[in-house]
C-alpha cells in the first residue's frame, strides 16, 4: 500500500462545511488506496474528519495539530 501523499489540500482559513466538502470532492480523483493530505485551521474539523471517515469508510491514517494547523492524512477506500 502506498505511503506517498498523492494529493494535498490547503483548506486553511475555511469554515464548516468547506473543509469536508472540498475533501470529498478532492478524494474523487484518487485511486483506491492512495493517500490525501488535508490541512485545515477550523477546530471543528477534528471531529468532522473523524465522523466523515467513519461514515464514508475512508481510513483516517493520521491526525495531528501543529501551530494551529490541523493535518489529516486519509487513505481512500
Amino acid at each position, binding site marked *: 500500500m502506498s505511503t506517498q501523499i498523492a494529493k494535498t489540500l490547503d483548506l486553511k482559513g475555511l469554515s464548516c462545511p468547506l473543509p469536508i466538502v472540498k475533501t*470529498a470532492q478532492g478524494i474523487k480523483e484518487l485511486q483506491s488506496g492512495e493517500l490525501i493530505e488535508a490541512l485545515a485551521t477550523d477546530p471543528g474539523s477534528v471531529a468532522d474528519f*473523524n465522523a466523515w471517515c467513519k461514515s464514508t469508510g475512508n481510513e483516517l491514517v493520521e491526525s495531528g495539530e501543529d501551530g494551529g494547523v490541523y493535518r489529516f492524512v486519509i487513505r481512500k477506500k
Partner: protein
Amino acid sequence: MSVEEATLVVPVHEHDEHAHKKLVIIAWGGELDRVWPQMILATTGAAMGMDTTVFFTFWGLMVLVKDNKRITGDNWMQKMMAMMDRPGMEHLKLGKMNFVGAGPAMMRKLAKDQSVASPGELLSMAVDMGVKLVPCQMTMDLLGLKREDMIDGVGEPAGATTMLMEAQDAITLFI
C-alpha cells in the same frame, strides 16, 4: 474529566455500515438564517456520500428563483407578493435583526471575513455534487412560479407524497 477535555475526545469508530445513506431536507423557510443551514447540510450530506434531496416548499422555494427575476406570478396578488418580498438567493432577509437589509448585509460581510461560503456558493456546490433540488408543485402553482423562472439544476416539481416516499428510509430535516 472536565467539560473542556470531554469535547476534545473524539471517539474513533469503525466504519458504520448501518449509517443512514439518504438525507431529505424539507426546506420551507426562506430567511437567510434558515437557507444557510439548509445548504450547509445538503452539501455535507452529499460529501458524506448520502443520496441527498432538498424539497423546496413555501417561502423556501423562493431561493430557486433566478436573482435577476424581479417579478414572478401571473395575477396581481402573486406579482404583489414578489414585489414586496423579492425572490432569489441574493435577496434573502434575516429571521431577526433584518433592519431593512442591513442585518443580512452585515451577516454576509462577517461570513466573507471568516471564509464561510455563501448560501449561493453552497447551492452551486450542491448541484455539482449531485444533490437533487425538488420544487414543490403546489407552491409553484400558488405563487405562479414557472420552471423558466428558476435557476439551472432544479429537478422536476413534485408533491408531498413523492417527498414522504423519498423520506421513508432517510434522515429527514425540516428547516
